[in-house]
């Protein structure tokens, strides 16, 4: 809370005599601006990655957990009979919300990416697929498997858990990595501002000595430095954030259906507001880092 009130007072106060006592610095100021901007730019991407993979993990987890597929790999002439038998079993299975056999057209569409659109399914022994949607309680996959084995020997139940689990895990891990990157970016920003502030404090050692001799308190001296670095981090991060968001905005996007992980990278809805937190956070990090650096340096002087 103290940081927050200090931050706002530092930023809202107009340039005063207190800020002028430290001579203006040219080149290093631009380096701080640039570094803050670059960090904010990277943070936007890390944020996009985290939010997108989080969204994906949730989506996969929720959608796939509630669906299963039954594959009827019977010879062509028995296929319809076995499919009907399996559907009858599903009707009486607890935990099954709906179950329907995919039509030839749907199956052709699924296979189209591999075999082309002109595929004649009736000429091939393609198994029939039944899409099962579970109720929220879920079904007893082991029990269903036993019943199917007894009555429809050619049916194979796939509850997706085999390939769902690693995908969800990968997505959550990716999200974690994204957040870890954001934390690292914040830490690097702090380190960079600390280095820049230390350099500025060292370069202005004589100014600080004069100020101490005429009765300036440490707070007064530190304020001039803190304000500068906080402003630089804020402005740099704001520019970096805007550029990062523009870059994310122009990422190519697939249609809703075809959206794969890569084309789904980006922000959706209110998530577009999340990157707006980056500049104030960068300013906060710079504020704390400069204050600590200034306090440490000043306490070492007479």
């Amino acid at each position, binding site marked *: 809370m103290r940081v927050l009130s200090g931050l706002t007072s530092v930023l809202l106060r107009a340039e005063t005599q207190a800020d002028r006592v430290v001579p203006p610095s040219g080149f290093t100021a631009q380096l701080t601006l640039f570094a803050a901007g670059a960090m904010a730019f990277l943070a936007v991407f890390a944020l996009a990655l985290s939010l997108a993979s989080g969204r994906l993990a949730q989506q996969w987890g929720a959608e796939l957990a509630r669906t299963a597929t039954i594959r009827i790999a019977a010879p062509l002439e028995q296929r319809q009979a076995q499919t009907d038998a399996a559907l009858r079993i599903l009707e009486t299975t607890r935990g099954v919300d709906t179950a329907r056999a995919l039509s030839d057209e749907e199956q052709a569409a699924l296979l189209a990416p591999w075999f082309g659109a002109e595929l004649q399914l009736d000429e091939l022994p393609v198994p029939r697929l039944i899409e099962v949607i579970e109720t929220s309680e879920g079904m007893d996959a082991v029990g269903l498997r036993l019943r199917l084995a007894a009555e429809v020997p050619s049916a194979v139940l796939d509850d997706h858990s085999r390939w769902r689990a690693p995908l969800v895990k990968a997505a959550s891990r990716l999200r974690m990595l994204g957040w870890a990157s954001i934390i690292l970016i914040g830490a690097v920003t702090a380190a960079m501002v600390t280095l820049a502030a230390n350099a500025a404090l060292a370069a202005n050692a004589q100014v600080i000595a004069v100020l101490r001799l*005429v*009765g300036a*308190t440490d707070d007064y001296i530190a304020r001039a430095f803190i304000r500068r670095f906080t402003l630089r981090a804020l402005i740099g991060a704001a520019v970096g954030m805007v550029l990062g968001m523009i870059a994310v905005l122009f990422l190519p996007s697939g249609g809703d259906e075809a959206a794969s992980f890569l084309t789904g990278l980006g922000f959706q809805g209110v998530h577009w507001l999340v990157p707006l937190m980056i500049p104030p956070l960068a300013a906060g990090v710079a504020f704390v880092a400069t204050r600590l650096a200034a306090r440490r340096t000043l306490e070492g002087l007479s």
Partner: protein
Amino acid sequence: MIELENVAYSYGGAELLSDISLKLAPGSFHFLTGPSGSGKTTLMKLCYGALLPTAGYVRIFDTDVRSLSRDDVAMLRRRVGVVHQDCQFLNHLSVNENIALPLNVSGRGAEAQGEDLGDLLNWVGLNERAKALPPELSGGERQRAALARAVIMSPDIVLADEPTGNVDWEMSQRLLHLLIELNRMGKTVLIATHDLSLIRATKSQVQARVLRIANRRIQLAGADL
């Protein structure tokens, strides 16, 4: 105002000053003299809290300097005007901003706009140079600017370390005259100098006491000058 009691100070083992007792009464005028390297500047620094004694007690305005926090030291320096041997300024600010710096750092920046600053500049004869930057000043102008900066807060004590170090005789007379005027206004003044003729020239104008540092100790050397 400033009281030293059995004070000793040593730099890295070698004792520079030892067993120094001294009392600066309000309104007094003191010279501090002694050969180069005898510890005049060190003694001055002890008097405004830039150094802490290695033994004994220094009390400034009845407060032990060892008990002062960094902020207390800052407050103390607003009440003690110091003219340093190497008068340092902020080279990117003009002369009048440098002179008004003590006002600004103590949150009284508004007073820096007033007539007082003009009067002060007039008094030290720097009116024409108000907008100049410190590196453009001559030695004497720097000393006078330092003096103006030291007194702008209207301190109770003025400490001047070799205020006439880099200036010719006429200029040193002018500076001394300014310090005597301050003393007449009731300020306690302590001047460190190795220039005995300056001390002699002063004696006719003001009741000054001369302290001499010799063999690490301080002696009152009034009569023999």
